């Protein structure tokens, strides 16, 4: 191939990879509202910890996940700062059944459960703290949502 054409192809490859990266980044940490989800119990996610009285943040991780420890720290910090909110981290490495059941396609994936254990929202990828806090405020029955009414 002509060197100029080869150089053009190489640049096109870089451009395509950049496009892929931008598309991936735009989807990272995006919240999806979940409607009509059944109520979960701690046993459903193999958790030995009880769910929170106000809300529960269920984080799916694996042992090979570069962003999971950072997400763990952030969500655990949110749980510490908000009474009634509990953070549960579920390692999918040995629980492929849970990965399939909850259709986890990337780690971390976080579920926001309301006080009854119903999934209200899910986030694929590392979530932003502000988004998590806003969703906790908007959960049905939360103090914030009650005051707003």
């Amino acid at each position: 191939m002509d060197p100029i054409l080869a150089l053009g192809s190489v640049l096109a490859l870089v451009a395509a990879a950049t496009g892929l990266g931008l598309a991936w980044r735009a989807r990272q940490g995006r919240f999806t509202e979940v409607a009509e989800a059944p109520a979960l119990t701690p046993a459903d996610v193999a958790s030995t910890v009880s769910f929170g009285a106000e809300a529960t943040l269920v984080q799916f991780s694996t042992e090979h996940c570069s962003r999971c420890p950072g997400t763990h720290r952030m969500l655990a910090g949110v749980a510490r700062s908000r009474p009634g909110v509990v953070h549960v981290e579920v390692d999918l490495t040995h629980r492929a059944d849970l990965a399939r059941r909850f259709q986890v396609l990337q780690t971390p994936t976080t579920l926001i459960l309301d006080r009854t254990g119903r999934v209200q929202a899910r986030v694929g990828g590392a979530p932003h703290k502000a988004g998590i806090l806003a969703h906790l405020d908007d959960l049905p029955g939360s103090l914030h949502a009650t005051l707003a009414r």
Partner: protein
Amino acid sequence: MPLLPAEPGTPGAGTGAGRPRRPDLDPRGPRFGAGITAGLLLVVVFLSLTGASVAALSLLVVLAALFAWGAIAGAGRHPWGLLFKRFVRPRLAPPRELENPAPPTFAQGVGLLVTLVGVVLGLAGLAPAVGITAAAAFVAAFLNAVFDYCLGCQLYLLLVRSGLIGRGPATAR
């Protein structure tokens, strides 16, 4: 240093949290290395496209050997990682957090697999395979370096889901 504290008072424990992690890697190191690797893979693609098959294959062999080094010795002891520690990290602020070396080491293994396929097919006389596998490895290395995307993490989850690894309940750790 506030590096992955034990999170006292956090009931964050499903089946996995609280396991001992060994976060001892500056996460910028593997990304720096992925940048160098991506540049060299791009050279392989260019050489392959211009018909310099021997040069392309030779460079891919070197890159496969480097991936093997990272996969076996661990991402923290990769030559690019040593370069980073020696010349780059002293000029940077300390990292905000350290990383478990397992994900980038696994990623090195994925890189080894892909480049090895290119080397084997190239040696078998299928010259275009060298450029194609180098292009595939480039995309992964580039996304890692520029966007902090972890292809190894994604593949690991897919392997877990397919039941190929991590089968059975967690053993006590």
